[in-house]
């Protein structure tokens, strides 16, 4: 399942939910807040989401991963609200019988979440100002697709 969290992500608790007697491989990914971006010193950041659409798009991505890869469990949790350096911003966990599918599905999920799920990052810079990131590489325009 895909979720949004307003509180600190407990990665150990989430990872335990991947357990399964047939799961010989568990791959997890933490996306963490770092202290710099694009040459600027970052003090912290905040995420804003369109919750209804973020949840349905996130679930769609997990369903796609289950269809494309031979996996057992797939989960993703994304933070919203204010975060500090080092906080976990997004967590992805996949379990599978074998490692190839687990690695591939985990990579697929984080890449698709970053490019499709309606969540926006506002960076607070050490210099005192802040700004929304609206990268050029994400899906825009007449491309509702990637369905």
């Amino acid at each position, binding site marked *: 399942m895909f979720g949004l969290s307003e509180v600190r992500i407990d990665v150990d608790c989430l990872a335990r939910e991947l357990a399964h007697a047939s799961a010989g491989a568990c791959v997890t990914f933490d996306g963490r807040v770092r202290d710099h971006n694009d040459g600027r010193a970052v003090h912290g950041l905040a995420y804003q989401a369109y919750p209804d659409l973020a949840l*349905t798009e996130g679930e769609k991505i997990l369903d796609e991963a289950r269809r494309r890869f031979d996996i057992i469990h797939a989960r993703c949790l994304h933070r919203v609200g204010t975060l500090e350096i080092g906080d976990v911003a997004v967590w992805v966990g996949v379990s599978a019988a074998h490692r190839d599918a687990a690695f591939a599905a985990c990579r697929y999920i984080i890449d698709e979440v970053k490019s499709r799920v309606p969540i926006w*990052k506002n960076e607070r810079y050490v210099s005192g100002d802040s700004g929304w990131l*609206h990268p050029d590489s994400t899906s825009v*325009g007449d491309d509702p697709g990637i369905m």
Partner: protein
Amino acid sequence: MNYHILYFASLRDAAGCDSESCVIDSTNAREVYAQLRQRHGFSFESQRLRLAVNGEFTTWDRPLAEADEIAFLPPVSGG
């Protein structure tokens, strides 16, 4: 037509509100955005935005209907 508009990220900051109701005499999403862009001074061309209507992504050529909830989504930056 009466619409309810949702704003996020830099569009929310520019509009000064997270949502608003408006009356616009068009069912064309690009025309609706153009009017709101003029009103609030949005920097994005509509080509840079995705469109969501009533909680689902859709295409810009879909005609809008009375009371639709419309979100113009700037490029996302989660993760």
